[in-house]
């Protein structure tokens, strides 16, 4: 039984950061759906190491917002067990660098349960984790490995890039009947504020969001890189280069129609992601366009990505990352081709 739409609501516009939006969406769902349980390391009393769950345990109690022992395989595994038995667990993994013990549970169980039981059972859960570099963090705290999860059949991977999308997409993820890995770009957790209406309205999953209309070139990106990309687009506009910027938002499954329509219009495609290049989600976007939109292309596709290296520790992390100038140069080169 769902309460979210049935409950009378007062729409309140609140200025919030991306992380506030996560907290607000979690609070909404905890408030409106008794099946929702938040669990993870330090999410209760401490409110999460990034404060994404701040105040939630005080408000909803220690049964609904649970501090767990330190074991990520356990967290994912018990979430699957709960989900299969009618709850909607929303586990937090403290950093993406510690998500790997969940991989076994996700690929072997969460993504397969519905299929294996021919629909008798399912796994409605949302595994949240902050990810990405650029915050001067210690080792294992800066990687972007969304492609690992995008490669898992039966799992949705969602990455918000603004407070409004964090709010709306997290609500949608929690209400989705299947497992979602919800990755939060922590570099932009507090980068800017936006007015978001706390009205319980979800945004659609499985669609891209066009952040900027343009006619010369399409740039597909997601997460924190939307910021560098939009800046590059601003810069290029001064040279009369018109970029269309698309936020992939749902990394898997990909809304290829929006991308193909855009490429049909612009004839050129640059893909920007912070994750390592090889076998990254950018490769999938490029493959889709090669398969379904090749004849629209006037130039080869370019990728601006992290390098295929271990994420450098923070003294050199920015040299790993795609930057405004790397993106702008790639756009110019693609236009010259």
């Amino acid at each position, binding site marked *: 039984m769902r309460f979210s739409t049935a409950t009378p609501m007062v729409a309140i516009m609140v200025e919030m950061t991306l992380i506030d939006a996560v907290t607000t969406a979690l609070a909404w769902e905890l408030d409106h759906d008794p099946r929702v349980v938040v669990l993870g390391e330090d999410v209760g009393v401490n409110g999460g*190491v990034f404060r994404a769950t701040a105040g939630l345990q005080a408000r909803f109690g220690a049964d609904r917002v649970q501090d767990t022992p330190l074991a990520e395989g356990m967290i994912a595994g018990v979430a699957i067990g709960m989900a299969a038995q009618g709850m909607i667990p929303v586990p937090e993994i403290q950093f993406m660098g510690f998500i790997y013990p969940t991989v076994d549970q996700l690929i072997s169980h969460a993504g397969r349960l519905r299929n294996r039981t021919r629909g008798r059972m399912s796994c409605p859960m949302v595994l949240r984790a902050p990810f990405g570099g650029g915050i001067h963090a210690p080792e294992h705290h800066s990687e972007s490995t969304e492609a690992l999860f995008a490669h898992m059949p039966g799992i949705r991977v969602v990455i918000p890039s603004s407070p409004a999308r964090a709010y709306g997409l997290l609500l949608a993820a929690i209400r989705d009947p299947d497992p979602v890995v919800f990755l939060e770009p922590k570099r932009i957790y507090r980068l800017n504020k936006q007015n978001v209406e706390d009205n319980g309205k979800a945004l659609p999953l499985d669609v891209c969001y066009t952040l900027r209309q343009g006619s010369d070139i399409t740039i597909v990106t997601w997460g924190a890189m939307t910021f560098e990309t939009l800046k590059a687009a601003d810069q290029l506009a001064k040279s009369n280069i018109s970029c269309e910027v698309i936020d992939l938002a749902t990394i898997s499954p990909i809304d290829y129609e929006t991308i193909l329509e855009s490429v049909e219009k612009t004839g050129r495609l640059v893909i920007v992601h912070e994750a390592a290049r090889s076998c990254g989600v950018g490769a999938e976007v490029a493959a889709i366009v090669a398969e379904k939109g090749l004849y629209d292309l006037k130039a080869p596709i370019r990728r601006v990505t992290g390098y295929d290296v271990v994420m450098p520790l923070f003294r050199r992390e920015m040299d790993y990352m795609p930057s405004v100038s790397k993106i702008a140069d790639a756009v110019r080169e693609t236009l010259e081709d």
Partner: protein
Amino acid sequence: METIADFEIQYSQFLDPAGKPSADIPELARDTGKLIDMYRHMVQTRVFDTKAINLQRTGKLGTYASCLGHEATHVGLAAAMQKDDVLAPSYREYGAMLYRGVRMSEILLYWGGDERGSDFEGPKHDFPFCVPIATQCLHAAGAAMAFQLRGEARCAVSVNGDGGTSEGAFYEAMNIAGARKLPVVFAVVNNKWAISVPIELQTASKTLAQKAVAAGIPGIQVDGNDVIAVRHWVERALARARNGEGPTLVEAVTYRLSDHTTADDASRYRKKAEVEAAWKLEPLIRLRQYLADIGAWNEKKEKALLQEVAANVDAEVQRYLNMPKQPIEAMFDYMYRDLPEFLEEQRDHAIQYGDSDGGHHG
């Protein structure tokens, strides 16, 4: 019905918090030189740690995990080890690493965001810091397998926290180590907290030492603020291991006197009174008192030690601060022994953008 298995867990302490012997002092502690050596290292660790926190606060170091209060556990276990044994630490065991010859400047480099911090000049075979909790326990077991296969009289020691005992890897490591009688010691540093999660929420187990029972290996709990107890029992465990008798779990009970890291604010989740009470049990005072009581230590020696230690720390801090950044290509050059061709193009790209690009990330 009959009882077919049961267990007991022993607790050991030799020096009480006031520095008075609470049990028969073991052989090692009759050697005043050894005690002074450990005391020096504990003080050095404390001074280093304080300095590192200052560096972080003044923007010269990244996030840092303080080892305040863990000095006896760290120094005691390292002092028990032989030079060619292998340490597999987590991220907090500076006392142990420094004792084994890691440089302070290396530890600072690591937390300063520079990979060269894990390229030890000293103990070449020791594992680097390990942040993914408890994964290092398996590496210690693996190292011990290597020693066993080659017939070497060497041992491995892994260190993990109370929180780490909840991870599968911790059990998996103890289990194979027990099954194969591997020469490994699992040191568990029970500092009562895993970030904000207290030990009572971590496990229903009365001790962490008893987690050894299911792996069929001995476990003992020691006062982790008593360096004599830590060293004595880790020495005994290592002697057993070296003798082919297999692994041991040594739980050292101490307290995390600091925040979890400099990015943490422990006042959110734990009571001041608890921390104040824990300060009364801290490890330096009792050893200093004991040394003074046996006539081996005095104000003058203390002053001289503090001066010497401060000078060491300053020199290492300078070395750290003077270290230029690694070149950009370093991120490629250690990926494989031989750089694959496809990476050369990326390497060139990175160099081309180089330092000049550093500020343009908004």
